[in-house]
């Protein structure tokens, strides 16, 4: 009995001591107060190799690395970042960049011309060897010459706008040469270097560095105190820690906002936007260069007939698209290139004209009652709404539309099949695109050039169009105005043939909690989904 009592008292004392320590002592320990924000991003991170990554990793790369220059879509101008100035030769085949001094990488090594040479050559050569990444932006670069520690000279095999390429959103990031030793490789093309990056290591000069990397769930960035730009920005309210949470389900992001676990949400269900505003959250709408393009299968009956395609296009009530399908979060497209992007052409739009549509259907020789298949990505609510709208209106023409919503990977499979087995590829398909570099070539080559068999889901092969696009790209470096004119002509051909149409440019509502302010400089549609956290102000 006495033994039991002793044990009981001892246990009670132990619990008391532990509870006191946990509840009263620990919380009093001094801890530095860090300004932390949580950004809910809507996709998994596919990689963070600064030379190779060409997808969702941009969200990380954009804060951790820097490019030589940056493109400003509002003014169409180029602003200096790691390069302070640049000059080009008259014929556009030699470009010289003067680099910013007193810049250091996250590992403390200095930024200089060697790093620029290594970064450009690696991106270019990986692409030349394997086709991976977006190193084709450096295709024209024949030689990267180090003039002195802070000057590089690019010698090109053909004239090219290197100022635009140096501002690209992919494969233009500069990393430290010390990475080779860190990764234990001698050759920059060694796959082990890519593995090293993708383990969560970084070697950039950006305002934040990677502290924790779990690409399927969370990435944590920490403020880089030695970033050269802090003194320029003078933003003492910038976050010290940025947590990027991967939340693919919009409803999940909405729940996270309600739970005060998310400060910036990139994707909340459109139908919940009203509710979230009523609860005191702020919305920042970004008109993006992310557009949705409707493509017709030009290798299968009946969409191989021009008049039939145009009949479909004239039967769509375009004025309803933004309101009905996008709930207002979009801008009706024109041509193929998004609004505000170089090469955009106004007035390449179709109007709702049922009479003309019926006339064109008659001219096409296609009998009413025909059925066509329409494939689109199932997890985009806008696509579903648009597909329903199209189906109902095209039915008035006597054309049945079989809707086939699919996962993105299946959509891509179905789209590519237009080249190998056009009869099995859908008649209609929606592709979405965001740019790599500020050039119309990015959209027009990828989506409609006959050599682009990965992404040209229309199976479109028009030598005149191909020639115009290729020629325009070659001319960008020497006669930019003429190049834009050729791109415009190429889009006009597509418009007249009704092969593809930009349905809409996405307007993305970013939802902010009350403690966060996001000035417009923090977003740039060329660098899709990248938030420049150095501009964010956190109110405690």
């Amino acid at each position, binding site marked *: 009995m006495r033994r039991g009592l002793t044990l009981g008292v001892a246990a009670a004392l132990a619990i008391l001591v532990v509870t006191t*320590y*946990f*509840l009263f002592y*620990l*919380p009093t320990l001094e*801890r530095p*107060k*860090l300004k*932390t924000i949580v950004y809910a991003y809507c996709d*998994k*991170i*596919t*990689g963070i190799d600064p030379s*190779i*990554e*060409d*997808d969702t990793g941009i969200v990380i790369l954009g804060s951790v690395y820097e490019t030589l220059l940056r493109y400003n879509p509002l003014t169409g101008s180029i602003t200096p970042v790691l390069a302070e100035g640049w000059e080009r030769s008259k014929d556009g085949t030699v470009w010289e960049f003067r680099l910013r001094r007193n810049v250091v990488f996250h590992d403390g090594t200095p930024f200089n011309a060697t790093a620029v040479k290594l970064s450009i050559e690696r991106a270019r050569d990986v*692409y*030349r060897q*394997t*086709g*991976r*990444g*977006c190193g*084709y932006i450096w295709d024209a670069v024949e030689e990267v010459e180090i003039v002195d520690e802070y000057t590089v000279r690019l010698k090109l095999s053909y004239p090219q706008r290197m100022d635009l390429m140096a501002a690209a959103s992919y494969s233009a990031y500069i990393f430290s040469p010390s990475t080779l030793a860190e990764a234990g490789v001698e050759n920059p093309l060694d796959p082990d270097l*890519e593995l090293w990056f*993708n*383990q969560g290591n970084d070697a950039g000069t950006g305002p934040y560095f990677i502290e924790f990397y*779990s*690409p*399927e*769930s*969370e990435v944590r960035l920490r403020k880089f105190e030695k970033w050269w730009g802090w003194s320029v920005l003078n933003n003492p309210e910038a976050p010290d*820690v940025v*947590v990027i*949470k991967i939340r*693919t389900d919009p409803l*999940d992001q909405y*729940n*996270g906002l*309600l*739970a005060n*676990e998310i400060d910036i949400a990139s994707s909340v269900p459109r139908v919940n936007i009203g509710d979230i505003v009523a609860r005191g959250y702020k919305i920042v709408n970004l008109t993006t260069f992310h557009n949705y393009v409707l493509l017709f299968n030009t290798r299968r009956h009946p969409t191989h007939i021009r008049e039939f395609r145009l009949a479909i296009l004239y039967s769509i009530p375009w004025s309803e698209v933004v309101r009905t399908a996008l709930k207002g979060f979009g801008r009706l497209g024109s041509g193929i290139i998004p609004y505000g992007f170089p090469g955009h052409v106004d007035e390449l739009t179709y109007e709702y004209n049922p009479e003309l549509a019926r006339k064109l259907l008659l001219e096409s020789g296609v009998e009413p009652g025909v059925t066509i298949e329409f494939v689109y990505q199932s997890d985009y609510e806008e696509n579903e709404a648009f597909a329903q709208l199209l189906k109902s209106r095209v039915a008035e023409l006597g054309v049945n539309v079989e809707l086939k919503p*699919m*996962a*993105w*990977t*299946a959509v*891509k*499979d*179905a789209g*590519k099949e237009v080249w190998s087995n056009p009869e099995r590829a859908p008649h209609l398909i929606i592709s979405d695109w965001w740019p*790599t570099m500020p050039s119309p070539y*990015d959209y027009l*080559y*990828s989506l409609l050039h006959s*050599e*682009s068999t*990965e*992404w040209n889901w229309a199976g479109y092969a028009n030598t005149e169009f191909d020639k115009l696009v290729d020629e325009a790209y070659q001319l960008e470096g020497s006669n930019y105005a003429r190049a834009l004119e050729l791109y415009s002509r190429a889009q006009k051909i597509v418009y007249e043939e009704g092969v593809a149409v930009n349905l809409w440019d996405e307007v993305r509502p970013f939802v902010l909690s009350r403690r966060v302010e996001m000035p417009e400089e923090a977003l740039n549609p060329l660098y899709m989904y990248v938030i420049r956290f150095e501009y964010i102000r956190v109110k405690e």
Partner: protein
Amino acid sequence: MPLSLNYLFRRLFWSIAVLAGVTLLSYLILVLSPGDPAAKWAGNPRGPGAAKAVELARKELGLDLPLHLQLLNFLRMVFTGDLGLSIAYKQPVYSILWRNLAATLELLFMAYIIGIPLGSLLGIFSALKRGGHLDGVLQTSGLALANTPAFWLGMAIFATLVPYGFTAYGRISTNLAIATNFQIFTGLYLLDALLQLNAPIFFDVLARLLPPALAVAAYPTGVCLRIVRTLMADALLEEHVRVAVAWGVKRRTVVWRYAFRATLPGLVQVSGLAFAYSLVDAMVVEYVFGREGLGRLLFDAISVSDFRLAIGLLIVVATFYLIINTVADVAQALIDPRVKL
């Protein structure tokens, strides 16, 4: 000794056969279904070299080989313990699996810590009150708990808590974790918080863990309640129990030492089976509560054609089933001398 070498060898053989079967079947389903893993591995390349990149990726992944060679290669990878890099994330498959497995296990363990004792106690209570109103209520509750979809229950719990300002979203408060410099050692956050004597994090993690754990605990609670009630009711009528009562043995001793003990072999076996089912429940519930874990990982892996990660995950789940069922068999043999393995 209730265990024989013969049993161990048989068990090992069938375990390997099951794992090989899971691997082959999953490979066929995932690789032959829509979605091109080679395009994903190449990073969905753009530009003039895109087609070349995809073809090279196909070779690197061995997807250009005849199907039987692909299957053999993949089996070799599985049984040498190297599934390579995830196609979507370009990180070793096992390191991704471990990060997420820990999250799911933490939830599952908590659900079991709640569910098995609670179900057993209610089952005992129901058996002691057999034939009465309370017995009827408890039996019906057990049936309802065992049959309510955990997904629905999870949503109901989440929605119920929100109006009271209490949300169990995610595994941990990000701000608190950063403010208290919380470090991840094992991936089991409760354990990590204890190891670092980090009370705020411990209670935060616990508060976020309990609501989803309650949803996952519903099934084992219901099943245990019903099985213990049935076995216990039988045991209370056994000769040795009645003799003990007649001899004036204390009620507590009769219930726990004689009657409840007789239910243990059955309870252990059912708990093992319920564990497998609850693992699936946990994978679903974690999605509702915004927690990372195997469920979310599997969904994402399949949606991006990451067959290496998806199969690795299915192998882990299958291995758990095998281990738990083996443990249940062995435990049953140890508890019940009539059972020989």
